[in-house]
């Protein structure tokens, strides 16, 4: 960590950055930002305010925020220990496990949704027992949205945290162990503080991915206003009849996520670095 920071400082001190780096960087930035500009240019600004405060938008927005946040909490609770196992544990076949964790990244989200239906659906491998024994049916419920989002977003968190763990110096943990600390104590007091920036970065990525989730959500949880219609679903359906409204919804989602991410960054990532 500190070594990397020193290196960064010396590069900065050496003066002008090389053109071969600046040019692609500018191109890359333009590639990412110009489509957003396109949305802003085409937005129906005159009707924007009216649509902004409609009940539909409020409902979808609340649902999106609640579900993405709940999904992120699930990912944190399950994902950080999983990342720790992958980085520090002595599991057999860790390479294979690591590849399996990234499956939801590669899987088209719609396929992920179908896979979830096959397992957790009313007639799914596990879902049939959930239904028969506890009367729990996840598809078409808000809980189903959270499950779908967590499934798709968790790899982002696991990969970020695992990377941070592998970059962290294990000697501090070893030192703590020689002083008699238990592994759980070491994890809480030594490991976790050391990888905090990585965890925060992973959490942010995970939340952002969950917020924008579309394919797995609409496939597994369906689409019903107030129950499972999150912002991306509302955007998609608005696009069918009223592209202007779709643009407004996208901009709302965009502004909101930028505000949350920037404020988090200043507060957590900025503070930690």
């Amino acid at each position, binding site marked *: 960590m500190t070594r990397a920071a020193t290196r960064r400082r010396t590069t900065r001190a050496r003066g002008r950055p090389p053109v071969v780096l600046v040019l692609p960087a500018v191109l890359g930035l333009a590639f990412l930002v110009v489509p957003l500009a396109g949305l802003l240019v085409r937005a129906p600004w005159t009707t924007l305010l009216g649509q902004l405060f409609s009940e539909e938008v409020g409902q979808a927005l609340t649902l999106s925020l609640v579900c993405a946040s709940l999904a992120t909490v699930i990912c944190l609770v399950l994902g950080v220990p999983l990342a720790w196992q992958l980085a520090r544990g002595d599991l057999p076949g860790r390479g294979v496990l690591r590849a399996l964790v990234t499956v939801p990244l590669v899987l088209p989200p719609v396929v992920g949704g179908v896979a979830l239906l096959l397992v957790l659906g*009313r007639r799914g491998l596990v879902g049939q027992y959930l239904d028969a024994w506890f009367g729990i049916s996840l598809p078409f419920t808000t809980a189903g949205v959270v499950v779908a989002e967590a499934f798709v977003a968790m790899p982002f968190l696991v990969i970020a945290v695992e990377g941070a763990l592998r970059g962290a110096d294990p000697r501090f943990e070893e030192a703590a162990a020689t002083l008699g600390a238990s592994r759980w104590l070491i994890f809480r007091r030594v490991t976790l503080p050391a990888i905090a920036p990585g965890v925060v970065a992973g959490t942010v990525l995970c939340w952002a991915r969950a917020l924008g989730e579309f394919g797995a959500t609409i496939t597994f949880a369906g*689409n019903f206003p107030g129950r499972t219609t999150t912002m991306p679903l509302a955007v998609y359906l608005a696009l069918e009849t009223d592209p202007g409204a779709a643009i407004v919804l996208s901009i709302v989602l965009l502004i909101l996520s930028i505000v949350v991410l920037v404020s988090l960054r200043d507060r957590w990532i900025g503070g930690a670095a």
Partner: protein
Amino acid sequence: MSRSSRSSALAAAAALTLVACGSNDAPAASRTGTPGGPAAVTGDITVFAASSLTETFTRLGKDFEAANPGAKVTFNFGGSSALAQQINSGAPADVFASAAPANMKQVSDAGGVSGSPKTFVRNKLQIAVPAGNPGKVTGLADLAKQDLKIALCAEQVPCGAAARKALQAAGVTAAPDTLEQDVKAVLTKVSLGEVDAALVYRTDVKAAGGKVEGIAFPEADQAVNDYPIATLAKAPNAAGAKAFVDFVLSDKGRAVLGAAGFDGP
């Protein structure tokens, strides 16, 4: 930085630019089809068709290619409204087959249609239930039951609009658990047994085979969907477009569509 690494970075940047250009040119490539002579139709023909036409049009495309060696039919299947928007945004399409006149109108209002669209088939709704009918559904009135899981199309897409009409005609207030983005998504939910009943097109029930059972209901007659087809004003391959539309409207085309459960116009 060493010379070799700099030049390889430049090469990578050049490659990136090339890739960017390449993807720009992709639509143009399909435009290169020669506008065939009066006799034989050649070149690429790009057909935008409603997703409920997936099976029949794929078959018709193969038949057309067999009858016109040198022609290649490429399909873009999707929701009719999404397709209409793609066409209006300048997608290089030759033919548009929509599942509803409203979406064809979106294109013709924007001046995108050459000639006038023709209705080539009609489609009716059916109640689709999983094999074995676990919810014991018998008619449209069952769709109002709260304890059954019901899927409908969202009203923004043609099958949802038709479902609303049929339900209105029957005086039934449905209690849907989900409003899906297209008819195939509804069908997936039925064939997986996740819902007890859904409203889909008769042709979709037929295409799903044994996993889905269809139940006809009288009010379906009041929500018949007309499917219009048209050649497009900016068709890169106008001759091919006309030939394909003629083929769909021919007796051979009608036979394929009829076998799939579509009604004639």
